[in-house]
């Protein structure tokens, strides 16, 4: 169900309509919980199932089975009683359940007794020289163009990086008729050895067959260079060439109009951090993840987190975690008792365990190389404010600065992306420079609005007498 009319109060607000958000909303609405779903995109599905209802791609084989698995979930979501609001940007939320949302050009505040954050993941920063040149984009961006607009690269395209999604996107792109001049794999050589102890779990997971088939398919149709240990995008006003160095020390320059970068995905933490949810460093996944219980309950009493925002585990796990978070909320809201909660949860927990098999292997196998996470020299760390790795390291050498002091020193992390494309890089560089753990260094302190809103939109919010009195000159 969807419609533009928003109420002032809901029992449950789900933020994000990817697999976790949709599953949470379906489960909650089925239990009679008055649920609103706020999502930034025009259609449900999140990034993984983006455009599933309206992709202009005619051949379903291009995107593969794993994509079309989402169709049933989207259908169930659209049939559910949850109030779905697309193109709604949540720009603030508080532990008291107050949510600020920009929708259809106006800004609204609403209240929910509980919030489930399902804001998913974003691609890990891939800071190399020239990564801000037009023509350089993420592999995820290319996948979005493919899914939602049936577009592929027209000229010389190069794909570089590592990760399970890297191979999936490569395969989808090739099936669609796209071509790569070359594929540059940055997976470090030592990864396989560190992943092998976790092979038994991987052998029992569905990723095994799918993964090997994808890699074999890509290798049949494109030339893959590995391992690549240095990478640089070159050009004046736009990308013209890519220079790379192989493990054997060979340096090669190839012409390129498009360079697609990818080295894994990390939780999108911005809204969770604004809400004050405690996060901890995940040493294998190399990112901050929220501290959660089995129901996705965060350190903030009213807030649960589900899906890849709770730690990277993929779409199938996200769906199960969404259902579990909804059951947790239903129990907290008094809709079900503990016995019903636990009985209903049992199959979801089993499915979650199955979906997580192999994850520990994948995390180690595709762990991105240090040299591509901790840049040096003139490579831009903060794309928005154009702050280089050298500047960050120089500041770190002066004293034991933290990420928040870097904002004052260099404006690093203070641009419109609010650290989404530099936060992890800055934390890791500072941790490296000071010999501390990323947990000790911490992350940027994030404040609302987490999405841009205009002053006019803010001013259009309803005001109480007290609000006006607070700012009026006596």
């Amino acid at each position: 169900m969807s419609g533009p009319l928003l109420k002032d109060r809901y029992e449950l607000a789900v933020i994000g309509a990817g697999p976790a958000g949709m599953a949470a909303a379906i489960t909650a609405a089925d239990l009679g919980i008055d649920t609103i779903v706020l999502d930034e995109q025009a259609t449900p599905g999140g990034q993984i199932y983006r455009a599933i209802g309206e992709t202009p791609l005619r051949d379903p084989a291009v995107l593969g089975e794993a994509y079309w698995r989402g169709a049933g979930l989207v259908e169930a979501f659209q049939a559910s009683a949850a109030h779905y609001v697309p193109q709604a940007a949540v720009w603030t939320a508080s532990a008291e359940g107050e949510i600020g949302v920009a929708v259809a050009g106006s800004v609204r505040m609403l209240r929910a007794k509980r919030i489930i954050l399902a804001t998913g993941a974003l691609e890990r920063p891939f800071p190399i020289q020239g990564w801000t040149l037009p023509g350089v984009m993420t592999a995820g961006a290319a996948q979005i163009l493919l899914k939602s607009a049936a577009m592929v690269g027209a000229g010389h395209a190069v794909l570089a990086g590592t990760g399970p999604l890297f191979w999936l996107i490569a395969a989808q792109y090739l099936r669609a008729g796209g071509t790569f001049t070359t594929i540059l794999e940055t997976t470090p050589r030592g990864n396989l050895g560190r992943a092998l102890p976790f092979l038994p779990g991987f052998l029992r997971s569905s990723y095994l067959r799918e993964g090997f088939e994808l890699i074999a398919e890509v290798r049949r149709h494109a030339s893959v260079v590995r391992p690549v240990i240095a990478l640089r995008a070159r050009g004046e006003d736009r990308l013209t060439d890519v220079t790379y160095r192989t493990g054997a020390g060979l340096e090669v320059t190839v012409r390129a109009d498009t360079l697609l970068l990818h080295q894994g995905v990390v939780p999108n933490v911005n809204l969770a951090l604004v809400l004050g949810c405690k996060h901890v460093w995940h040493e294998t996944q190399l990112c901050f993840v929220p501290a959660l219980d089995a129901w996705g309950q965060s350190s903030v009493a009213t807030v649960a987190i589900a899906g890849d925002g709770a730690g990277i585990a993929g779409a199938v796990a996200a769906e199960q975690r969404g259902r579990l978070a909804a059951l947790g909320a239903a129990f907290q809201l008094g809709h079900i008792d503990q016995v019903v909660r636990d009985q209903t949860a049992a199959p979801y927990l089993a499915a979650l365990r199955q979906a997580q098999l192999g994850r520990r292997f994948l995390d180690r196998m595709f762990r991105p190389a240090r040299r591509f996470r901790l840049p040096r020299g003139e490579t831009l760390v903060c794309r928005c404010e154009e702050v280089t790795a050298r500047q960050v390291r120089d500041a770190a050498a002066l004293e034991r600065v933290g990420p928040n002091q870097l904002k004052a020193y260099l404006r690093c992390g203070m641009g419109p992306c609010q650290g989404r494309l530099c936060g992890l890089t800055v934390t890791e560089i500072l941790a490296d420079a000071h010999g501390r753990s990323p947990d000790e260094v911490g992350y940027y302190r994030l404040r609302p609005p987490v999405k841009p809103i205009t002053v006019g939109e803010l001013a259009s919010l309803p005001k109480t007498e007290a609000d006006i009195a607070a700012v009026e000159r006596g």
Partner: protein
Amino acid sequence: MFRRLPDAAAAAVTIAVDGHFVPARVGDTVAAALLAAGFGTFRTTGVSGASRGPYCLMGVCFDCLVAIDGIGSRQACLVQVREGMRVETQRGRRPVGP
């Protein structure tokens, strides 16, 4: 540089980009329409004047900022095209004041 696959069939709309008419498809984001039309650079930065185009296409990088129907710094990857939409690429810092 991107191209549309031959099987991509959707109703056509026309938008204006920097005063030039650009064909687009219903369901395109502004970013997709501009990329399909051959626009690589969407703006130059306020810090150094460097050229930028879309990087993430999912609303997190803020590099695809353009003016849409007179409102500056909109995320082109999050707005869908409409017939008659006016889009302007951005150059450097935005002026302050009227």
